[in-house]
């Protein structure tokens, strides 16, 4: 197992917080409530959470997070958060790859290396917090 004891508990707590954010923000398909715990089981095997869930008639949320333990603290080593439209295009995608320092207006990113790409490929600042991405997705969904 990649995680033991307290590490497993920390991973479960983090995944639970994502579940709470999602269920507070969206009305999700019933299957999701059964599928999400299986996705979290996979975290205990591979240290990676990955799932996709429809959040509206034409938007799908796809989240992938890779975890490591820094001393006793769970950290997200690499992530990819995606909002995908009905045509399969990335409407929004956030990641922490270290290849951007500025946004599309050449202003420094507020929380590098975290950033968001929009559907036109423009780079914007992003906090790196999955809960903020979910909140933004909710706002986007309500304005469509």
């Amino acid at each position, binding site marked *: 197992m990649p995680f033991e004891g307290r590490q497993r508990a920390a991973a*479960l707590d983090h995944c639970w917080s994502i579940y709470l954010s999602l*269920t507070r923000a969206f009305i999700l398909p019933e299957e999701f409530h059964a599928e999400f715990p299986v996705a979290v089981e996979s975290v205990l095997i591979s*240290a990676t959470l990955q799932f996709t869930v429809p959040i509206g008639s034409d938007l799908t949320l796809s989240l*992938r997070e890779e975890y490591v333990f820094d001393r006793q603290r769970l950290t997200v080593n*690499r992530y990819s958060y*995606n909002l995908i439209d009905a045509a399969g295009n*990335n409407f929004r995608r956030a990641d922490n790859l270290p290849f951007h320092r500025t946004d599309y207006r050449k202003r420094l990113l507020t929380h590098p290396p975290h950033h968001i790409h929009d559907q036109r490929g423009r780079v914007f600042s992003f906090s790196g917090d999955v809960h903020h991405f979910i909140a933004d997705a909710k706002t986007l969904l309500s304005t469509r």
Partner: protein
Amino acid sequence: MAKRNPPQRMTKKKFVKMVTSGTLSADRAIGNMVDELQRYERKYGMRSEVFYALIPGTPAEDQPDFLNWAICYRSYFRALQSKFPLKELSRYAI
């Protein structure tokens, strides 16, 4: 018209119980990752080992498929290591 009730959110107790119930075996988790790796390999005509040696760590990684492929590849190794906790495998650890 009857209002549709949203599905009920599970409790944390139920969530922990479901996660720790052992529904997903390491074999199935590894199988799922192999399927995903093979999808990328077919799509880009490149073996995962070659992809991983060439793309991650370069700006080319900043593309959804490549980022997910790299994460999936590392996850696959971690899952293998959890199934076969052999020192031999540590040579291939990323």
